[in-house]
Protein backbone atom coordinates (compact mmCIF):
# COMPACT_ATOMS: atom_id res chain seq x y z
CA UNK A 1 0.00 0.00 0.00
CA UNK A 2 3.02 2.33 -0.10
CA UNK A 3 1.91 3.42 -3.53
CA UNK A 4 -1.29 4.73 -1.93
CA UNK A 5 0.18 6.60 0.98
CA UNK A 6 2.88 8.37 -1.01
CA UNK A 7 0.16 10.53 -2.53
CA UNK A 8 -1.03 11.66 0.90
CA UNK A 9 2.02 13.48 2.18
CA UNK A 10 4.82 12.43 4.48
CA UNK A 11 2.99 13.15 7.74
CA UNK A 12 0.36 10.46 7.27
CA UNK A 13 2.37 7.61 5.82
CA UNK A 14 2.96 5.66 9.01
CA UNK A 15 2.38 1.94 9.12
CA UNK A 16 0.41 2.56 12.29
CA UNK A 17 -2.19 4.54 10.35
CA UNK A 18 -2.57 1.77 7.83
CA UNK A 19 -2.85 -0.89 10.54
CA UNK A 20 -5.52 1.03 12.44
CA UNK A 21 -7.58 1.61 9.29
CA UNK A 22 -7.15 -2.03 8.25
CA UNK A 23 -8.40 -3.13 11.67
CA UNK A 24 -11.42 -0.83 11.40
CA UNK A 25 -12.17 -2.10 7.88
CA UNK A 26 -11.81 -5.75 8.92
CA UNK A 27 -14.11 -5.16 11.89
CA UNK A 28 -16.70 -3.78 9.45
CA UNK A 29 -16.29 -6.74 7.09
CA UNK A 30 -16.72 -9.09 10.06
CA UNK A 31 -19.92 -7.36 11.22
CA UNK A 32 -21.48 -7.30 7.74
CA UNK A 33 -20.30 -10.85 6.99
CA UNK A 34 -21.81 -12.18 10.20
CA UNK A 35 -25.16 -10.43 9.66
CA UNK A 36 -25.46 -11.20 5.97
CA UNK A 37 -23.63 -14.47 5.43
CA UNK A 38 -23.66 -16.51 8.61
CA UNK A 39 -25.24 -19.92 8.04
CA UNK A 40 -26.34 -20.10 11.67
CA UNK A 41 -30.07 -20.69 11.81
CA UNK A 42 -30.70 -18.18 14.60
CA UNK A 43 -28.83 -15.40 12.78
CA UNK A 44 -30.67 -16.23 9.56
CA UNK A 45 -34.10 -16.16 11.18
CA UNK A 46 -33.47 -12.99 13.17
CA UNK A 47 -32.10 -11.15 10.16
CA UNK A 48 -34.41 -12.71 7.57
CA UNK A 49 -36.17 -9.55 6.38
CA UNK A 50 -32.92 -7.57 6.63
CA UNK A 51 -31.10 -10.08 4.41
CA UNK A 52 -33.83 -10.05 1.79
CA UNK A 53 -34.00 -6.26 1.90
CA UNK A 54 -30.26 -5.93 1.32
CA UNK A 55 -30.30 -8.55 -1.44
CA UNK A 56 -27.82 -10.83 0.32
CA UNK A 57 -27.92 -14.36 -1.09
CA UNK A 58 -30.41 -16.06 1.21
CA UNK A 59 -31.85 -19.58 1.66
Amino acid at each position, binding site marked *: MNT*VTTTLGADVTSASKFMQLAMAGLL*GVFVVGFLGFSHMEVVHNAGHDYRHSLAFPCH
Partner: protein
Amino acid sequence: MTLFRNVVFIAALAGLCAGIVLAALQSFATVPLILQAETFENAGEAAPHDHGTPAAGEQAAASHSHDHDEEGWAPADGFERFFYTAAANALSGIGFGLVLLAVSELSGGISSWRNGLFWGFAGFAVFTLAPGLGLPPELPAMPAADLASRQVWWVGTVIATAAGLWLIAFRKSLPLAALGVALIVLPHVIGAPQPESHDSPVPADLHHSFVVAVTITNLVFWLVLGAVAGMIRSRFLGQPALRGSFA
Protein backbone atom coordinates in the same frame (compact mmCIF):
# COMPACT_ATOMS: atom_id res chain seq x y z
CA MET B 1 -5.11 3.86 18.52
CA THR B 2 -6.65 7.36 18.35
CA LEU B 3 -7.35 6.98 14.66
CA PHE B 4 -9.03 3.59 15.15
CA ARG B 5 -11.19 4.96 17.96
CA ASN B 6 -12.22 8.02 15.93
CA VAL B 7 -12.99 5.95 12.83
CA VAL B 8 -15.15 3.59 14.89
CA PHE B 9 -16.95 6.54 16.45
CA ILE B 10 -17.68 8.23 13.10
CA ALA B 11 -18.77 4.90 11.59
CA ALA B 12 -21.05 4.22 14.55
CA LEU B 13 -22.75 7.62 14.33
CA ALA B 14 -23.15 7.61 10.54
CA GLY B 15 -24.07 3.90 10.48
CA LEU B 16 -26.75 4.28 13.15
CA CYS B 17 -28.31 7.23 11.29
CA ALA B 18 -28.27 5.44 7.93
CA GLY B 19 -29.37 2.11 9.42
CA ILE B 20 -32.36 3.64 11.19
CA VAL B 21 -33.38 5.49 8.01
CA LEU B 22 -33.07 2.21 6.08
CA ALA B 23 -35.12 0.25 8.62
CA ALA B 24 -37.85 2.90 8.45
CA LEU B 25 -37.88 2.82 4.63
CA GLN B 26 -37.91 -0.99 4.59
CA SER B 27 -40.88 -1.19 6.95
CA PHE B 28 -43.13 0.18 4.25
CA ALA B 29 -41.15 -0.44 1.03
CA THR B 30 -39.69 -3.97 1.21
CA VAL B 31 -41.02 -5.86 4.25
CA PRO B 32 -44.69 -5.80 3.11
CA LEU B 33 -43.58 -7.39 -0.19
CA ILE B 34 -41.60 -10.07 1.71
CA LEU B 35 -44.69 -10.86 3.81
CA GLN B 36 -46.81 -11.02 0.66
CA ALA B 37 -44.34 -13.43 -0.97
CA GLU B 38 -44.37 -15.63 2.15
CA THR B 39 -48.05 -16.27 1.60
CA PHE B 40 -47.10 -17.95 -1.70
CA GLU B 41 -44.37 -19.86 0.11
CA ASN B 42 -46.75 -21.13 2.77
CA ALA B 43 -49.42 -21.94 0.20
CA GLY B 44 -46.81 -23.94 -1.72
CA GLU B 45 -46.01 -25.94 1.39
CA ALA B 46 -49.63 -26.67 2.28
CA ALA B 47 -50.48 -27.91 -1.20
CA PRO B 48 -47.34 -28.56 -3.24
CA HIS B 49 -47.31 -26.47 -6.37
CA ASP B 50 -47.06 -28.28 -9.68
CA HIS B 51 -44.20 -26.66 -11.53
CA GLY B 52 -44.61 -28.78 -14.64
CA THR B 53 -41.49 -30.87 -14.17
CA PRO B 54 -40.61 -32.85 -11.06
CA ALA B 55 -37.07 -31.44 -11.01
CA ALA B 56 -38.28 -27.85 -10.93
CA GLY B 57 -40.79 -28.75 -8.24
CA GLU B 58 -38.14 -30.33 -6.07
CA GLN B 59 -35.83 -27.40 -6.50
CA ALA B 60 -38.53 -24.91 -5.58
CA ALA B 61 -39.35 -27.03 -2.54
CA ALA B 62 -35.69 -26.93 -1.54
CA SER B 63 -35.76 -23.15 -1.72
CA HIS B 64 -38.56 -23.17 0.85
CA SER B 65 -36.24 -24.59 3.45
CA HIS B 66 -36.45 -21.66 5.84
CA ASP B 67 -39.87 -22.45 7.27
CA HIS B 68 -39.71 -20.66 10.60
CA ASP B 69 -41.84 -23.13 12.51
CA GLU B 70 -39.61 -26.12 11.86
CA GLU B 71 -36.15 -24.64 12.27
CA GLY B 72 -35.68 -23.37 15.77
CA TRP B 73 -36.11 -19.91 17.16
CA ALA B 74 -37.38 -17.08 14.99
CA PRO B 75 -38.76 -13.72 16.07
CA ALA B 76 -42.54 -13.58 16.36
CA ASP B 77 -44.30 -11.66 13.60
CA GLY B 78 -45.07 -8.06 14.41
CA PHE B 79 -42.97 -5.86 16.66
CA GLU B 80 -40.40 -8.52 17.57
CA ARG B 81 -39.66 -9.27 13.93
CA PHE B 82 -39.42 -5.54 13.14
CA PHE B 83 -37.11 -5.03 16.12
CA TYR B 84 -34.62 -7.64 14.90
CA THR B 85 -34.76 -6.29 11.34
CA ALA B 86 -34.10 -2.77 12.62
CA ALA B 87 -31.26 -3.97 14.87
CA ALA B 88 -29.65 -5.85 11.98
CA ASN B 89 -29.93 -2.71 9.84
CA ALA B 90 -28.37 -0.48 12.50
CA LEU B 91 -25.51 -2.95 13.07
CA SER B 92 -24.86 -3.41 9.37
CA GLY B 93 -24.94 0.37 8.94
CA ILE B 94 -22.04 0.52 11.40
CA GLY B 95 -20.29 -2.34 9.58
CA PHE B 96 -20.63 -0.72 6.16
CA GLY B 97 -19.63 2.58 7.77
CA LEU B 98 -16.40 1.05 9.07
CA VAL B 99 -15.55 -0.28 5.60
CA LEU B 100 -16.40 3.08 3.98
CA LEU B 101 -14.36 5.05 6.54
CA ALA B 102 -11.35 2.72 6.31
CA VAL B 103 -11.20 2.85 2.51
CA SER B 104 -11.88 6.60 2.31
CA GLU B 105 -9.25 7.42 4.96
CA LEU B 106 -6.69 5.43 2.99
CA SER B 107 -7.65 7.58 -0.01
CA GLY B 108 -7.36 10.92 1.82
CA GLY B 109 -10.65 11.09 3.71
CA ILE B 110 -14.18 12.27 2.96
CA SER B 111 -13.95 16.06 2.87
CA SER B 112 -17.59 17.14 3.13
CA TRP B 113 -21.18 15.91 3.05
CA ARG B 114 -21.13 16.48 -0.70
CA ASN B 115 -17.96 14.47 -1.16
CA GLY B 116 -19.64 11.88 1.08
CA LEU B 117 -22.51 11.59 -1.39
CA PHE B 118 -20.04 10.48 -4.06
CA TRP B 119 -18.56 7.93 -1.65
CA GLY B 120 -22.11 6.80 -0.97
CA PHE B 121 -22.76 6.33 -4.68
CA ALA B 122 -19.59 4.23 -4.85
CA GLY B 123 -20.73 2.08 -1.92
CA PHE B 124 -24.13 1.64 -3.56
CA ALA B 125 -22.51 0.59 -6.84
CA VAL B 126 -20.20 -1.86 -5.07
CA PHE B 127 -22.60 -3.47 -2.57
CA THR B 128 -26.02 -3.16 -4.23
CA LEU B 129 -25.86 -2.41 -7.94
CA ALA B 130 -23.10 -4.75 -9.11
CA PRO B 131 -24.11 -7.89 -7.17
CA GLY B 132 -27.79 -7.11 -7.84
CA LEU B 133 -27.30 -7.29 -11.61
CA GLY B 134 -26.35 -10.96 -11.49
CA LEU B 135 -28.28 -11.88 -8.36
CA PRO B 136 -31.38 -9.67 -8.25
CA PRO B 137 -32.93 -9.27 -4.79
CA GLU B 138 -34.92 -12.43 -4.06
CA LEU B 139 -38.23 -12.86 -2.37
CA PRO B 140 -39.04 -15.88 -0.19
CA ALA B 141 -40.40 -18.82 -2.25
CA MET B 142 -38.24 -17.93 -5.25
CA PRO B 143 -35.92 -20.59 -6.66
CA ALA B 144 -32.19 -19.91 -6.45
CA ALA B 145 -28.90 -21.65 -7.14
CA ASP B 146 -26.73 -23.21 -4.42
CA LEU B 147 -26.34 -20.75 -1.53
CA ALA B 148 -22.57 -21.08 -1.08
CA SER B 149 -21.82 -20.53 -4.77
CA ARG B 150 -24.04 -17.44 -4.83
CA GLN B 151 -22.26 -16.09 -1.75
CA VAL B 152 -18.88 -16.64 -3.42
CA TRP B 153 -20.01 -14.81 -6.58
CA TRP B 154 -21.47 -11.98 -4.47
CA VAL B 155 -18.23 -11.48 -2.51
CA GLY B 156 -16.08 -11.74 -5.66
CA THR B 157 -18.24 -9.18 -7.46
CA VAL B 158 -18.06 -6.74 -4.55
CA ILE B 159 -14.25 -7.00 -4.38
CA ALA B 160 -13.78 -6.70 -8.17
CA THR B 161 -16.15 -3.72 -8.44
CA ALA B 162 -14.55 -1.94 -5.49
CA ALA B 163 -11.06 -2.50 -6.89
CA GLY B 164 -12.18 -1.37 -10.34
CA LEU B 165 -13.77 1.85 -9.07
CA TRP B 166 -10.73 2.56 -6.91
CA LEU B 167 -8.35 2.20 -9.88
CA ILE B 168 -10.53 4.54 -11.94
CA ALA B 169 -10.98 7.16 -9.20
CA PHE B 170 -7.52 7.28 -7.64
CA ARG B 171 -4.91 6.16 -10.17
CA LYS B 172 -4.43 8.77 -12.85
CA SER B 173 -3.46 6.33 -15.54
CA LEU B 174 -5.33 5.28 -18.65
CA PRO B 175 -4.15 1.63 -18.60
CA LEU B 176 -5.11 1.28 -14.92
CA ALA B 177 -8.49 2.88 -15.61
CA ALA B 178 -9.00 0.36 -18.42
CA LEU B 179 -8.04 -2.41 -16.00
CA GLY B 180 -10.60 -0.96 -13.58
CA VAL B 181 -13.34 -1.16 -16.19
CA ALA B 182 -12.32 -4.73 -16.98
CA LEU B 183 -12.52 -5.66 -13.27
CA ILE B 184 -16.02 -4.19 -13.03
CA VAL B 185 -17.17 -6.09 -16.13
CA LEU B 186 -15.46 -9.40 -15.34
CA PRO B 187 -17.90 -10.87 -12.76
CA HIS B 188 -20.77 -10.37 -15.21
CA VAL B 189 -18.84 -12.11 -18.00
CA ILE B 190 -18.31 -15.03 -15.62
CA GLY B 191 -21.98 -14.83 -14.69
CA ALA B 192 -23.79 -15.37 -11.40
CA PRO B 193 -24.96 -18.86 -10.41
CA GLN B 194 -28.56 -19.24 -11.58
CA PRO B 195 -31.22 -21.80 -10.61
CA GLU B 196 -32.03 -24.55 -13.09
CA SER B 197 -35.49 -23.12 -13.46
CA HIS B 198 -36.91 -19.70 -12.67
CA ASP B 199 -40.39 -21.13 -12.18
CA SER B 200 -41.78 -19.49 -9.08
CA PRO B 201 -45.13 -19.12 -7.37
CA VAL B 202 -44.24 -15.45 -6.78
CA PRO B 203 -45.81 -13.18 -9.45
CA ALA B 204 -43.29 -11.38 -11.69
CA ASP B 205 -44.72 -7.93 -10.95
CA LEU B 206 -44.36 -8.51 -7.19
CA HIS B 207 -40.72 -9.47 -7.71
CA HIS B 208 -40.13 -6.45 -9.95
CA SER B 209 -41.57 -4.11 -7.32
CA PHE B 210 -39.27 -5.74 -4.77
CA VAL B 211 -36.15 -5.27 -6.92
CA VAL B 212 -36.95 -1.57 -7.35
CA ALA B 213 -37.74 -1.13 -3.63
CA VAL B 214 -34.52 -2.84 -2.51
CA THR B 215 -32.37 -0.90 -4.96
CA ILE B 216 -33.82 2.50 -4.09
CA THR B 217 -33.86 1.97 -0.31
CA ASN B 218 -30.22 0.87 -0.44
CA LEU B 219 -29.33 3.92 -2.55
CA VAL B 220 -30.82 6.19 0.12
CA PHE B 221 -28.99 4.22 2.84
CA TRP B 222 -25.60 4.69 1.15
CA LEU B 223 -26.19 8.38 0.42
CA VAL B 224 -27.14 9.04 4.07
CA LEU B 225 -24.17 7.00 5.28
CA GLY B 226 -21.69 8.87 3.07
CA ALA B 227 -23.16 12.32 3.70
CA VAL B 228 -23.31 11.95 7.50
CA ALA B 229 -19.79 10.52 7.58
CA GLY B 230 -18.57 13.47 5.48
CA MET B 231 -20.39 15.96 7.69
CA ILE B 232 -18.92 14.77 11.01
CA ARG B 233 -15.54 13.46 9.86
CA SER B 234 -13.54 16.70 10.06
CA ARG B 235 -14.66 17.27 13.68
CA PHE B 236 -12.78 14.14 14.72
CA LEU B 237 -10.00 13.66 12.19
CA GLY B 238 -9.15 17.20 11.08
CA GLN B 239 -9.03 18.39 7.50
CA PRO B 240 -8.58 15.67 4.92
CA ALA B 241 -5.23 15.32 3.19
CA LEU B 242 -4.90 17.50 0.11
CA ARG B 243 -4.97 15.58 -3.08
CA GLY B 244 -6.60 15.64 -6.48
CA SER B 245 -9.88 13.82 -6.15
CA PHE B 246 -12.96 13.24 -8.22
CA ALA B 247 -15.23 15.45 -6.11
